[in-house]
Structures are given as C-alpha cells and as structure tokens.
C-alpha cells in the first residue's frame, strides 16, 4: 500500500475518498449491488458501491485533475477462488491520457510491485483468432453457441440460452485466459457491446476503447478510455436497464448526478483503470486462491 501511494505521490496524482454508500449504483446487468436501508434519505435505500467510478468521475468533471483511490468495493454473489463479495480496489484516472498511455503507467506501477518483465498487448480480436480460432466480430451467435457446446462442454440447452456476449465471456475465461498464463498480457479493443463505460472507437467494426490486464491468467485490471458524452451514457444506462428487465434482474436507479456532471463538467479525454488489490497481493504471494491472502474471507467474515 505504501509503495502504491508513493508511486502516485511521485506522479502528482491526488488521493481521494468517495462514498461507499450511494443513492444510485452500477446498471451493468452482471453487477449485482448490495442494497441497504437508510430511513433518512428519499427512497429509504442506499447501495454499496460496486466501484468508486461514478463518484470519481464527478470529481473529475468538477476539475479535480488526476486522482486515485484505494477503497472497498462490493459485488453481491461473487464468491470463489478469485472473488470475494467485499474486496479492495485501486482505481485511478488520468485526464489527457490515451488508453495506451495508461497501460504504460500501469506497467510502471506493476514493475515496481511485482517485477514482471515486459507485457504483451493483444487486441480482443487477435487473442480470439490466435487462441480460439474465432473472429469475435464476424462470427454468428448460433456458431458461438455451437462452439461452447463442442469445445467447452456446455449443455446444449444452456448454450441456446446464452447471449452473444455471454458466449464470448465464456470463451474468454475458459480458452483465452488459461492461454495467457505464461506472460502478462493486455487485451484491448473489446466488442462495442462490452464497452461498459468506455468510449467507442469508430471503425469497422467499431470497438470499445477498453483494456484489461491478465497476469498468470488472472484478470487483474480493467480500464477504459472514458465515455464522456452524457447523452450516450444515458442511453447505455437505459439499455442496461432494458437488459435487466429481459433477464429478470432487479432494476436500479440510474446515476443522474453523474449524468449531470458529465453534461456540465470539464471531463474531456480521460482514461481510468481499476485494479484488484486482493488479487495483486495474491499474485505477489504466488497464491492461486484469495482465501490464502484474506484474513477473513466472506465465509468467515
């Protein structure tokens, strides 16, 4: 922790602290938030944050300049060797940085903490072509479903219920991630449908300016060159809620304060990244299970 703080102090990045409880929460369909009671606020509910992203972007829009935060984040139902529902994130934002510049800065930080040596950079498409022999942008959804049945042993009735991105996620975690075991690797330029809060790079096909770092096959960090257009951000939030309705998932309040901040704020080109600190500690200790480095995992919390 001290090494992380001194890294950012050297670079003039300001440490901030933002609320863990908030009136709104992430709309992304596959992130489930803990909902708490709070009688003193309108609506009587607050959400434990799945990441400090919204609040930090509001600071950025208010002109904070480069900021970082080490905080707890909460995601319900995520529990396993690499997941604990309560976990520690390091998240930082760099106004004026491209995705490539932020990847380079992340490498410098990790070089200090883990001494990993050089890292590879693949696009999402390159990795899928190389390790799964699939063009993730051109392939049809039925052939993806067929692939997960044939190559990954998914039951056919499960496969037909999988949406396109779920098939791609499955191939990523079962085929690509294990293949990236040997060397630290960045994946960038994700499908537009997996943009989350990243801006879209126009092109053919258009891709999300999103980047993820895998070390020893473990997903360690996820970054975006941020979407700063409040209109498009609103559309994506509403799109997420529509997907939630279709999948029978709970509806959540949209973060209108973030939308207003984007609309009126000073946020221009900016890249941000979130890094799992528990996983970082696990990797530096040479362990493969979070329970090896968490004194009190959720089962004993």
């Amino acid at each position, binding site marked *: 922790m001290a090494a992380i703080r001194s890294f950012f102090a050297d670079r003039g990045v300001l440490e901030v602290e933002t609320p863990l409880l908030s009136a709104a929460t992430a709309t*992304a369909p*596959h*992130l489930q938030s803990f909902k708490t009671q709070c009688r003193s606020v309108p609506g009587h509910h607050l959400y434990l944050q799945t990441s400090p992203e919204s609040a930090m972007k509001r600071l950025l829009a208010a002109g904070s300049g480069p900021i970082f935060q080490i905080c707890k984040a909460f995601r319900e*139902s*995520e*529990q*396993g*060797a*690499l*997941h604990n529902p309560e976990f520690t994130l390091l998240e930082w934002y760099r106004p004026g940085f491209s995705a490539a510049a932020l990847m380079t800065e992340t490498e410098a930080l990790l070089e200090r903490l883990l001494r990993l040596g050089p890292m590879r950079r693949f696009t999402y498409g390159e990795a899928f072509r190389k390790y799964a022999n699939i063009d993730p942008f051109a392939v049809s959804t039925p052939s993806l479903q067929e692939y997960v049945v044939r190559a*990954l*042993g*998914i*039951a056919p009735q*499960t496969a037909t*219920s*999988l*949406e396109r*991105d*779920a098939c*791609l*996620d*499955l191939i*990523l*975690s*079962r085929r690509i*991630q294990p293949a990236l075991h040997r060397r630290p690797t960045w994946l960038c330029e994700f499908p537009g449908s*997996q943009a*989350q809060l990243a801006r879209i790079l126009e092109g053919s096909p258009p891709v999300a300016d999103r980047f*993820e770092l895998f070390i020893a096959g473990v*997903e360690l960090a*996820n970054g975006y060159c941020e979407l700063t257009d409040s209109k498009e951000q609103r559309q994506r939030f509403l799109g997420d809620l529509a997907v939630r309705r279709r999948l029978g998932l709970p509806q959540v309040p949209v973060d209108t304060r973030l939308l207003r901040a984007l609309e009126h704020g000073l946020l221009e080109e900016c890249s941000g990244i979130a890094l799992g600190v528990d996983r970082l500690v696990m990797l530096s200790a040479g362990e493969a299970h979070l329970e090896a480095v968490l004194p009190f995992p959720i089962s004993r919390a």
Partner: protein
Amino acid sequence: MASYSTNEFKSGLKVLIDGDPFSILENEFVKPGKGQAFNRVKLRNLKTGRVIERTFKSGDSLEGADVHETDLQYLYYDGDSWHFMDAGSYEQFTADSKVVGDAAKWLKEQDLCTVTFWNGQLLSVAPPNFVVLMVNETEPGVRGDTASGATKPATLETGAVVKVPLFVDEGELIKVDTRTGEYVARAKE
C-alpha cells in the same frame, strides 16, 4: 425435492441432471470482467460412478436428488441378487449386480456396508473400508519369510484375488483394504 441455485452448490450436494442422480465434487465460480458469471462444476454420477464436468450460468438451478446413505448388514447372495437388512428395523432390501458392482467381491455375510438410496431404491453399495476374509487358495506358505517383500496371489473366500506375502497360508484370515484391494495384515477372528 427442492431445487438448488448455483450459489447454493457445494461439494456433497446431490442433484438431478438428465434424470440421473449426481453428487457435486467441486464448484468453481468463473466470472470474466464485468460479464456473465458461470459455475464450472465437477459431478459424480451416482449410478455409474463416472465424473463429468458441466458449466452452468450463475443463477441457474438444478433439482435436488432424494439421495441418502445408510449402513445395512449384508445377509446373503442367492445366486441372482444380494440381500441386505437394516439392523435397526429388520427391513430387508435386495440389490442386483448393477447396483452391487465391484463391491461383490468384498461382501462377507454379517458385514455392515454403506449403501446409497435414491428415491427409496438401492443405488450403490460400498463395502467396509477394511474386511477380514479367509484365504481359500494360495501356494504353500514359506515359513519365516517376513522380510523379503515378495508376494503371491491368494484367492479369498469371497472370490477376490489379492497379493499376499509369501508366509500367508490357506485357511488363514487376512485384513484387506477394499479401496485399494491391498493386503494389510494377518488377522484373528
């Protein structure tokens, strides 16, 4: 039977897949990025013993299987089926060769076996981990040879063939580990 969602999966849970009862061996939570979460599960088919791997979407559920284990006393083999009795209630059960399988060669009358029931039917029989059986047939013993480590085959009263040290004679009782099929020691009644 209740159904179980993936977040209730844990090793030992008995579930139904395609009409067969399975026991969960391992359950791994897999979630890439901010995408769909999956559970990758290893299960043992309780009818065939085969281990399979399945991946489920997190939140999917499986019907529970009405499976339970109990200890029954083995009574006798009538040439066609094996007969067991609940030593508490005296209720009797019969099992055919599909159910008893390889356990048959370790079953000795009066021994307590762990049996698995599914929907009230006998599903499988596990012999005790250690059984004491008489040697029916083996080459003559070599007296005093307790150190060489050499072995010879011996046919036991149940028909099982195990490797025994050279000093073991016909008519002697030996203790066998049924999980490995290996000789453990000579035994007294």
